[in-house]
């Protein structure tokens, strides 16, 4: 248990001044601007937005600057900032089918209506350090081509499979209220909507590790990437005073449709099942891992044995939040003097008893 302590004000002030100077680094090197971080560390900014659960690239970039590039610290800053703001309401659900696609690939079909576009990807690069980047220089402009006629209409791969009944439908929108873990503590069992909210803001490393564990046999789901798409979607919100959906602007999202092996029963024919991932910004790794874990967490619903960590929703949901995890782990370094004193006294007493007893045993033996 942590008991409050007093004192150390001057040392703490000075530590924070030292932090500020350390954050700045060598003053002979030009200072980073928030715009530079936003424009040139985009995937890092995206990660802070996803795990901070707040889409605001400028704010995430500033948080990264303040946090010396530490993702979890930046997430902490963003989460703290959001608590100072009022909630106007909830958006209309975004339509990822109408996404202006910047990247879209499928591992299940090579020919798709709308086509596959690679976009700005690390895939197929050789992962050799590019020393030319160490020197500032101009960038060769990206190639351009006339979009083909079908570009711009990209039906989801799962919609194509669903036309033939080969894949289970998405759970229908029954108009029931949507749980929000930022408003109500999670009650177990949590429904799929709540689980997806937790995964969307969950730590990328943790969700990735869990997703990987399902591939290695801890809750296998036999996944195929039906589709990964990255692009911009419009967000709309209906303000009470207007009564119609107001376009707020566009946000970049990554969506993964995982197509998994079949279920079926005496009464329902075999069909593919689904795992779903959706994240702020461009993060295929996170969206794919999220889709794997989403599917694994449906084990009980689909009549599969629940034997592995990735299938255990209490394990996953209670531990996937980087801020909660870091809070509890890192609080251990704060002064625990009173607690530890009690432990010290206990261990001293137990040792005294141990030696007294062993002395008397020895005496009896002699």
């Amino acid at each position, binding site marked *: 248990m942590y008991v409050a302590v007093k004192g150390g004000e001057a040392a703490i002030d000075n530590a924070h001044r030292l932090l500020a100077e350390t954050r700045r680094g060598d003053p002979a090197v030009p200072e980073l601007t928030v715009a530079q971080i936003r424009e040139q560390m985009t995937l890092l900014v995206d990660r802070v*937005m996803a795990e901070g659960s707040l889409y605001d690239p400028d704010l995430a970039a500033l948080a990264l600057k303040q946090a010396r590039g530490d993702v979890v610290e930046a997430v902490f800053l963003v989460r703290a900032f959001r608590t100072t703001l009022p909630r106007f309401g*909830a958006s209309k659900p975004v339509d990822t089918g109408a996404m202006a696609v910047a990247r879209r690939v499928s591992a299940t079909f090579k020919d798709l209506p709308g086509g596959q576009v690679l976009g700005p990807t690390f895939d197929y690069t050789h992962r050799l350090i590019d020393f030319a980047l160490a020197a500032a220089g101009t960038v060769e402009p*990206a190639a351009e081509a006339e979009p083909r006629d079908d570009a711009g209409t990209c039906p989801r791969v799962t919609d194509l499979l669903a036309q033939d009944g080969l894949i289970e439908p*998405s759970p229908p929108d029954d108009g029931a209220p*949507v749980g929000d873990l930022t408003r109500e503590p999670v009650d177990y069992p949590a429904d799929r909507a709540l689980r997806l909210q937790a995964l969307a803001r969950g730590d990328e490393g943790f969700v990735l590790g869990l997703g990987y564990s399902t591939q290695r046999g801890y809750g296998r789901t036999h996944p195929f990437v039906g589709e990964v798409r990255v692009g911009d979607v419009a967000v709309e919100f209906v303000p009470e005073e207007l009564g119609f959906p107001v376009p707020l602007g566009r946000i970049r999202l990554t969506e993964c449709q995982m197509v998994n092996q079949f279920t079926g029963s005496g009464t329902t024919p075999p069909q593919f099942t689904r795992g779903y991932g959706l994240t702020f910004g461009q993060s295929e790794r996170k969206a794919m891992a999220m889709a794997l874990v989403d599917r694994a967490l449906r084990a009980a619903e689909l009549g599969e044995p629940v034997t592995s960590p990735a299938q255990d929703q209490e394990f996953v949901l209670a531990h996937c939040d980087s801020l909660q995890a870091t809070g509890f782990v890192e609080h251990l370094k704060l002064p625990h003097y009173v607690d530890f004193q009690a432990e010290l006294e206990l261990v001293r007493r137990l040792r005294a008893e141990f030696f007294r007893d062993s002395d008397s045993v020895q005496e009896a033996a002699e």
Partner: protein
Amino acid sequence: MATSPLHQGRDESAARRAVMALCADASRDDLDAALQTLAAPPIEDLRPPETGLVMATGRIGGDGRPFNLGEVSVTRAAIRLPDGATGFAYHLGRDRMKARLAATLDALWQDPSRRARVEDALRSAAEKAEAARHRAARRTAATRVDFLTLARGED
């Protein structure tokens, strides 16, 4: 969009939303420049510009039950013109000045006698947004890939 007035061929509400979408995508400088050309009357805040949050929702599987994806920062403004007309704006981000400019444009646009001039003032912002979308689509199109399946050796 840029070549025909936004209010032609659409119902009133759809046209107003199209102007709102245009303002949401435009920069503060673009909106400021548009308003400069309109000799806008002095405005009064109906509600001071305010930054808050909207919970962005998605759908399970893209088309199913909604779920909460995460919040977006949103700034809103509501203004009144001297003649009593009101205008509203809700935008992603934290730019209060921009929200107030957009709310002013919304109020002016609702007056049918000013509508064409407002859309004219926004034309360059609309063209800029359209050009950016066009360029992004062309650069994406250049990365379109046709995968071929190779015959497997054991067959």
